[in-house]
C-alpha cells in the first residue's frame, strides 16, 4: 500500500471503530442491557443476509453494480420498509429479556450457516463469492468508502452530542423517564436506525467485525472518565475506540504472520466472544 492508501485505511478503520462503538452504546442504553450490541441483536446477520441476497441477484442477473454499494442500498431499503411496517406498532421501552439476545445470536449463526452453504455451492460452480466478508479487514479501501463512512460517523456523532444529555436519563429506565415527562419512545427510531446503519456500512464495505459494538462500550466504562458519564461515552468514547481500532488494524498490516495479514475482524471476534463469556459469568455471579 502507498502512503495515500495507508491514510485512507487508517481513516476507514477509525470511522468503523467509532461507528460500531456508538452503535453498541446506543443499543445498550436503549435496551438497558449491557449484553446488547448490533452483533448480539442480530443486526450483523441481517446485513450479511442483504449482502448474500444482493450477491445472488447480481450473479443471476449479471449485474455489474459493485457488491458493497448494492448491498448497502439494499440494507437501507430494508430499513425503510421495516420502519414503515412497524410505524403503527408501539415498542415498549423495557429491559430486554436475555432471550432476545439469544435470538439475535442464533439468527447470526443461522445466517452464518446459510453463508457457508452458499459459499460451498458457489465453489462447486467455480463462481465468485464474497468469502472475505466473514472476518472484516481494511485491505481494499477506496476514497468513496472513506467519504461515506466518514459522513455517517460524523452524522452519528452529531446526533449523539445533540441528545446525549437527554439520553443520559435512559440509563435509569422508562419509568424514571416518564416521571420526568421525557418520552423514551422518541429515541427508538433514530437510535435503532443509527445502530443498524453503523453495522450496515462497516459490514458492506469492510466485512464483519463481531462483537466490536459490545467490546468498546465496556472497555470505555472501565475508565472513570467514561464510567457514569454517558455524554462522554457517546461523544469522546467513539473517537477513542476508533483510534484503538485503527491502531490494531495498522498493527496487523505492519506485522503480518508468515507474510499473510491477519484480518482484524478475527482479532475482534476472539476478544468480543471472550468478553461476552466473561459478562455472562459475571452476571451469574452477581445474581
Amino acid at each position, binding site marked *: 500500500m502507498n502512503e495515500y492508501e495507508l491514510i485512507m485505511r487508517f481513516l476507514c478503520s477509525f470511522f468503523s471503530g467509532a461507528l460500531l462503538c456508538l452503535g453498541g452504546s446506543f443499543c*445498550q*442504553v436503549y435496551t*438497558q*442491557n*449491557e449484553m446488547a450490541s448490533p452483533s448480539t441483536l442480530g443486526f450483523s446477520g441481517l446485513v450479511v443476509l442483504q449482502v448474500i441476497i444482493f450477491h445472488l441477484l447480481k450473479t443471476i442477473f449479471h449485474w455489474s453494480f459493485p457488491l458493497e454499494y448494492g448491498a448497502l442500498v439494499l440494507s437501507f431499503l430494508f430499513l425503510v420498509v421495516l420502519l414503515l411496517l412497524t410505524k403503527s406498532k408501539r415498542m415498549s421501552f423495557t*429491559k430486554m429479556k436475555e432471550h432476545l439476545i439469544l435470538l439475535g445470536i442464533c439468527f447470526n449463526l443461522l445466517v452464518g450457516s446459510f453463508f457457508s452453504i452458499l459459499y460451498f455451492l458457489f465453489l462447486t460452480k467455480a463462481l465468485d463469492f464474497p468469502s472475505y466478508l466473514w472476518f472484516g479487514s481494511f485491505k481494499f479501501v477506496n476514497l468513496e468508502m472513506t467519504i461515506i463512512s466518514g459522513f455517517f460517523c460524523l452524522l452519528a456523532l452529531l446526533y449523539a452530542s445533540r441528545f446525549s*444529555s*437527554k439520553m*443520559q*436519563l435512559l*440509563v*435509569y*429506565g422508562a*419509568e*424514571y423517564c*416518564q*416521571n*420526568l415527562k*421525557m418520552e423514551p419512545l422518541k429515541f427508538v427510531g433514530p437510535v435503532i436506525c443509527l445502530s443498524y446503519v453503523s453495522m450496515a456500512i462497516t459490514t458492506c464495505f469492510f466485512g464483519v467485525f463481531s462483537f466490536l459494538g459490545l467490546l468498546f462500550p465496556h472497555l470505555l*466504562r472501565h475508565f472513570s472518565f467514561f*464510567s*457514569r458519564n454517558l455524554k462522554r461515552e457517546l461523544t469522546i468514547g467513539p473517537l477513542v475506540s476508533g483510534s484503538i481500532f485503527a491502531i490494531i488494524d495498522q498493527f496487523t498490516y505492519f506485522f503480518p504472520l508468515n507474510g499473510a495479514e491477519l484480518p482484524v475482524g478475527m482479532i475482534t471476534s476472539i476478544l468480543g466472544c471472550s468478553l461476552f463469556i466473561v459478562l455472562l459469568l459475571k452476571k451469574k455471579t*452477581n445474581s
Partner: protein
Amino acid sequence: MNYVVENHFQEGVQLIHGKIHGIWKLVQGESQLWQGANGIGKSSFLRFLRENEKKYLKEVVCSYLMQGPLHVLGDYTPRDLIKHTEDYLGKSFESSQELIEGFKLQSRLDTPIRFLSGGENQLVKLLSCLMLSSSVYFLDEATTHLDEERIKFLFDYIQKRKKDGVSFVLIEHHPHASLFCESVLKFSKRNRLEIEYERV
C-alpha cells in the same frame, strides 16, 4: 369537593384482565387506597392510566412508582440519579435531602444502584419518584422490602405532603395504609372488572 380527577368508565375500557367499568375520582389533598384481590387488575389499571395519561389525567401532573426494582445500566449511583434529575429539570430539589435523611440513604448515595439490596433499591425508587414536584403520586406496593421505621417515615411524609394539596394513590397491602386514606377504590370482578369509589 374539589375533584382533581374524575373519570367515568361506563362504556367499559379494555385492560389485560378484561373491560373495566365504574367511576374513579380523586380529591385534591387526599390519599386513596386501591383495594382488591391479588391479580385482579389494580396494577394493570395503573399502567393503563399511565399510558393514557393525556386522556385521563390531563389536569394533573403525575409521578408513578411501579412495581419492580430500579434497573440501571452501568455503575450509576443514587447521587448521580439526583444530579441528572436536577440537571434535566434545571432546578435543585430541597425535598431530596429530607427524603435521603428520612430513608437513611446517606451512606448509600455513592454506591452503584445495581449493588444495592432490594430494600435500598426500593428506597432509591421512592426517592426518585417523591422528590419530583407532582400533584398526584401513584405508589404501587411502595412498602415492599421496607422496614417498619422507613414505612413510618413514608406514611408520615405522605400525610405532610397532603397538607400542600398533593394527592396520593396507594396500591398497598400494609395494614396501616388504610388508617390514613380518605377514600378507597374497590376492585371487584363479576363478568367484568368493576371499580367503586367510596369516601371513608
